[in-house]
């Protein structure tokens, strides 16, 4: 057992559970930052320092992107606006699900380690001995995957779907470390790109939801949308397709 790796894996799991279950958005972001920021330190051997730094910076940037937009966007989910945010079953239930995933993943990692050694009669080393760096990485990864599936594919709003997607992808990449060994540096950098792409898309969607909420409340004119996003023409926002004003008839002037 590696106590540091085990502690980090527990923190990653706690961060994932917090990110998924917290009703307060800022609390969820703290959990997300912990889960994303600590997961690069799991597994053995650790990646090169430059890769490790890239993953940590990518995680911080992803959390910051979401924080920046959550600060401004006060949104109402399109589905179930009367329901509170976060997990419907509460953090204790999510934590128990994560704990069950830990048990399964540690046992799975132990079996895989036996297979990899080619000795099916290897003696059991006890629960503590089973907590190898690979096992705890797989456990933290599987726990993240399990708690993130529902918010990713059934989330009511952009914030919950984005958080779920980030935890899910982070969990799969972590599960890979535990089951198939640490990926190469380029694949880890690819993971950073994916995390940043998800955070960017999520931030955009959260911002769009906030804008929709303001429009529904009548606090913002619709034209601002087109102008800010560059979808308008040089003369202003893009007119609807059936607007006769959007005609290409020649203007007067010198031929």
């Amino acid at each position, binding site marked *: 057992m590696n106590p540091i790796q085990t502690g980090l894996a527990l923190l990653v799991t706690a961060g994932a559970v917090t990110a998924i279950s917290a009703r307060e958005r800022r609390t969820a972001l703290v959990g997300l930052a912990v889960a994303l920021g600590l997961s690069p330190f799991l597994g053995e051997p650790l990646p090169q320092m430059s890769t490790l730094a890239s993953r940590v910076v990518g995680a911080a940037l992803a959390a910051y992107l979401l924080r920046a937009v959550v600060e401004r966007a006060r949104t109402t989910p399109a589905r179930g606006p009367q329901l509170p945010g976060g997990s419907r079953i509460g953090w204790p239930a999510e934590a128990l699900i994560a704990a069950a995933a830990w048990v399964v993943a540690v046992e799975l990692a132990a079996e895989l380690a036996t297979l990899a050694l080619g000795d099916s009669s290897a003696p059991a080393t006890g629960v503590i001995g089973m907590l190898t760096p690979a096992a705890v990485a797989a456990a933290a990864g599987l726990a993240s995957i399990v708690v993130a599936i529902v918010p990713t594919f059934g989330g009511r709003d952009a914030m919950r779907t984005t958080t779920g997607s980030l935890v899910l992808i982070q969990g799969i990449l972590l599960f890979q470390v535990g089951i*198939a060994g640490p990926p190469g540096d380029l694949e880890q950098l690819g*993971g950073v790109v994916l995390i940043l792409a998800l955070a960017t898309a999520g931030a955009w969607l959260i911002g*769009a939801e906030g804008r929709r909420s303001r*429009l529904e409340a009548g606090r913002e004119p619709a034209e601002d949308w087109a102008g800010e*996003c560059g979808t308008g023409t040089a003369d202003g926002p893009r007119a609807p397709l059936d607007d006769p004003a959007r005609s290409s008839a020649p203007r007067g002037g010198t031929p």
Partner: protein
Amino acid sequence: MSVLLLAALTIPGGIATVLVAARRRRAFAIGLAAAAASIVVAASIGAEDTVPLAGAVIGGSDGLRTITLAWAISTFLFGLMDGLLGDGPSVLGPSLVGLGLGALGLSAADAGIGFVVLTAAAVVAAVLPLVMVRGGPMAAPGLGLHTLRPVVGAGALTIVAVVWGASPVGPFSAGALPGIADPALERSLGLALLVVAGAVAVRLGAIPFHAWSARFTEALPGSAVPPLLAWGAGAFALVALGWVDVTITPAGASLGAERDLIAIVAIASIVLGGIAAVIHDDIEHVLAYAIVQDAGIALLSFATLGDAAVAAGRDWIVAAMAVTSGLAAWVLVTRATFRTNRRADLRGWARRSPILGAALVVVLAAAVGLPGMAAFGARGTIIDLAAPGALGVLVLIFALAPVVFLGRLLLTGVDAMSGPVREAARADVHIRGGRADGWADDPSPLRVAVAVVQTNRHALAAAAAVLAALIGLGVAVGGLGSTVVGGGSGQEPGASPSGINGGP
């Protein structure tokens, strides 16, 4: 090195285009310059272009050059069309990012890298263009979530499959020898095949996972479709096909039930997609269901493993990517020119705009094909291998549905003109004295040139659509051919590939 240069050009160029999107002219200038440069770089990719990078290998090949060149030209043409038609640069930026990441994903010798990077590209291409969604800010968040979920789900499934492949219970482990029937391994191989084929079905929008792609296609301008549902989805399918070829096929397992299940889903997509494209009147719906049908044929190549099926699958996927781009270009320009998307209101469109008529004729030729064309042969081979006999003939008949739904649109085009078509003066090429004509406030050559472009912008966009269709025809004629054979690296755990990378 050319692949890295392509990524270094397009990814920052795309990000810069997105960041300055509010300043349309500046954004278009940056984006089109990056797209034009990417065409030159893509043309220089070669088989000897292999670079070690961060512990992996980025390899070029002739097949990769074909795809990236067509992809880059398509990106440039759609950017040009968006500029001419008054749409914003919100598609051009994500398209450039998708091109760069797609080239990296296709060239990586490890399928894990390919899936991760291509999923990132799809996420960007799925969400950022939503500023142009019809329905505006009220519709964008919902559509964004419905598009994001399948993209993330497909990526997650494939990464899990790659993890399994490289794990001690995967086929590369010491105990699993090629051709040796191990029941446990055979079950795992079958499950892995289903997972990857399911991910491809979701990502390509095959039935029953077509709802998201159909909604995306009908809600956004045609320029937003190719980066996500043609080039991006095709690249994803190519990497998946390469992974299956390297990981599943060599084990020699029969996997009859799994292949039958994949074939049923694929044939349902071919049949129902073709019928839906025929009965729908909106041109966006026709595009959406043409994509569903193409996805079915691509999926069918996963139902029959072997060198012939894989080679045909690659040819078909690449051709379908390019032809879909041509059809999307026609849809984009036709809707913008005539301000309608209904076939009944488009009567006489080809007589009003012969350039657009030429574009659809080329698309029809590429989509249906002729004997001797790579896409035509690939479609026949895939169907014949997956569904031999009378069923195969029936499926092939449905697979030729483009003859009906595109032919019907062409016949509508030569009908008597409807009101909206007759009134669409913007479709005309304004010519005076044998030259294209425009109106400017002063007679300086630059002003006149700008005025000529502005006055004839719909005709110029139609010409760009013809070029996009010609690219589709060219790829459908040539395919990837023999350039893919022996491209992959092969046998290392998790290595895979698209089959068009150079490998180590």
